[in-house]
């Protein structure tokens, strides 16, 4: 029924085109939907740049409320409608659209050679291995530290786990809360684990656990959890009740010296006027790996049912270009996964640099597709670990069991 509907629509359009067909240059109009209402101005500039080189294509950017976007786009696509270009979510959010065939597979039609593989995981449908959207921006888990506090106490940013704890101890003795993080909100614990666990479980672990060569009861993972649990004493008093807003407030007000959080916190801390810098999570030992966990925020997809697929693909190719990546970085302050897009902002530049050694933000990237999700499991487990009701080994066991049951 959908197909026939589309066919009728095409016929009508064709007829309409014939009747007005005499106009000089037939311009193709593309609809582009997104949830980024805060980015309308920047996108219009970026689109203007695209239209300059493609005078026959006109792109209209429409931003929907972020909380309703998933529903709006899915409903439209299910009804056989929707825009030509779709700003997609990533991982599970992408699969929801790609699996029913709403999105055009792009890997053979768009050159994505400038984009790293870790980013592309976010827009790949696991079932067929095709990439369905051009990755657009990544988020990175970092350790923020207050440069004023560090200077006042003569501290240098820690490189290794031992240094990290030494710095924290010194801060605590000086009456400063070393780490702003609390455990009231599970997702912030997961973020914290993204900064701290990978350097203990190592770069191999992700591939091995996702391929099934090992599971989460692996001693590397358990060991990493044990290390993370050591941080309790450096968190605020009553950290079990410290929520996201309180953590940010503690760091932004200078009550706490360090904060483990996502790169998306940067604008907020800048607005708050706190002087800070960022580092990757500490290495397990001197000379050890120093990775940052990253995940992809979303991508640009093409509606498989688009009337103007070729033009839409042209736009998708544009989003995979270095020129676009640079604009994304400059105009939106996003960290583009596109190689060679360098930021003039030192913090963003530093993140790009840190991303040189990156590891997937494991639960979101690989275990967000079935119930219970990896995020659910790790968040709950970490909360129990920080509440003292479960040991790291028990948490690892629960996560492992949960994931096996969900597959």
């Amino acid at each position, binding site marked *: 029924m959908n197909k026939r509907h589309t066919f009728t629509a095409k016929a009508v359009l064709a007829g309409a085109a014939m009747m007005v067909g005499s106009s000089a240059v037939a311009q193709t109009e593309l609809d582009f939907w997104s949830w980024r209402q805060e980015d309308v101005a920047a996108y219009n500039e970026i689109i203007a740049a695209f239209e300059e080189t493609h005078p026959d294509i006109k792109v209209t950017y429409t931003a929907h409320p972020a909380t309703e976007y998933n529903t709006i786009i899915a409903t439209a696509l299910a009804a056989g409608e929707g825009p030509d270009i779709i700003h997609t979510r990533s991982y599970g959010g992408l699969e929801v659209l790609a699996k029913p065939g709403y999105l055009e597979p792009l890997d053979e039609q768009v050159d994505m050679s400038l984009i790293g593989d870790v980013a592309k995981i976010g827009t790949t449908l696991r079932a067929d291995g095709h990439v369905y959207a051009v990755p657009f921006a990544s988020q990175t888990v970092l350790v923020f530290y207050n440069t004023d506090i560090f200077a006042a106490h003569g501290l240098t940013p820690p490189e290794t786990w031992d240094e990290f704890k030494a710095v924290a101890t010194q801060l605590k003795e000086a009456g400063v809360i070393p780490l702003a993080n609390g455990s*009231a909100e599970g997702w912030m614990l*997961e973020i914290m684990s993204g900064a701290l666990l990978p350097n203990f479980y190592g770069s191999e672990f992700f591939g091995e656990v996702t391929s099934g060569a090992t599971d989460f009861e692996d001693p590397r993972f358990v060991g990493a959890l044990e290390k993370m649990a050591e941080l309790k004493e450096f968190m*605020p008093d009553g950290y079990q*009740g410290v*929520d996201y807003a*309180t953590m940010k407030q503690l760091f932004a007000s200078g009550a706490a010296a360090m904060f483990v959080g996502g790169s998306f916190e940067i604008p907020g801390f800048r607005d708050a006027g706190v002087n800070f810098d960022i580092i990757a999570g500490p290495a397990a030992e001197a000379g050890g790996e120093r990775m940052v966990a990253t995940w992809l925020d979303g991508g640009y997809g093409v509606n498989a049912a688009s009337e103007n697929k070729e033009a839409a693909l042209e736009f998708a190719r544009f989003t995979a270009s270095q020129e676009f990546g640079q604009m994304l970085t400059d105009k939106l302050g996003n960290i583009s996964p596109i190689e060679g897009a360098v930021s003039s902002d030192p913090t963003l530049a530093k993140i790009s640099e840190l991303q040189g050694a990156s590891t997937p933000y494991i639960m979101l990237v690989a275990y967000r597709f079935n119930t219970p999700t990896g995020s659910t499991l790790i*968040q709950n487990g970490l*909360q129990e670990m920080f*509440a003292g009701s479960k040991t790291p080994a028990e948490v690892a066991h629960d996560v492992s069991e949960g994931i096996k049951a969900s597959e």
Partner: protein
Amino acid sequence: MTAMTDADFRRAIRARTLRRNLWLAFLLLPPMAVMFIFIFLPMGSAVLYSVYEWDGLVRGDFVGLENFREVLFEPQKSKFLFNAFKNNVIVFVSVMVVQNGLALVLAMLLAREPKGYRFYQVVFFLPVILSTVIIGFQWKLFLNPVFGLVNNLLRAAGLDSWALPWLGLPETALPSMILVNAWHWVGFPTLVFLAAIHRIPKDYIEAARLDGASEWRIARDIIWPLMAPAVTIIVVLTFIGAFNWFEIPYVMNGLEGAPGYSTDMLGLLFYRTAFGSISATDSDFGAGSALAVLIFLFIFTVSLIFTRLLTAREIELA
């Protein structure tokens, strides 16, 4: 003027009946339509959705009771259901004891019209009219372990060891929320109970007083049994409220029932299963609808049983 025959009279009566029925239909139609659109339709669609597989918002194959089997019998999923259910039961029992018990005591005290009782009546009822979301948020701030009012007061009173992260500990999070709920709602059952007490003819109480009953015996033997209808209403409303509890746990500790699902509720579980939560899960309409159907059936059945059992206990006031 011709005389009316029997048939004429009957016709007139029929016409009158018809007019009355049309009028009734006219009055009933709008509410029925509203009921249909906002209650039966969503309920029906929930049942329908629950027997399909879903890819996000896209309906897949018919799977029969598979979604129900999953949420009820697959340990990794059912453990959430049973944990949430257990928490809802705890909420129901605690609200009955703490909130409604307090309301009963307050109502009995207010019914004796102590000095300034009208003022207290308003004071107790005031939180009821405030928005639940605002109250949840306000108390979340009060209970903040770092700069919350509650812990600051405790510390000021020298009770440092009492200054706990109330919402962060599995042992205290749910009790704290239940107390916040009681703070929010206690005025409502108080008012209902008070109205019920005022409805009891004074004679009964005076007769009991002459019979030598103490205030306590009067409360227990006369007022309490004669308040039965109000108690029925409150028990059923409390039950429905407890098993649909959402706003306060959501606002105070989030969609995942932190910490460690100690404040998870059926409502939260349903919501994040059906619609997903940005930080941990994506939406699964099938399982979500199955949960909705189960929750509805449970609340409906038990409310019915409660109503039956409790109305049997009720006495018409002579």
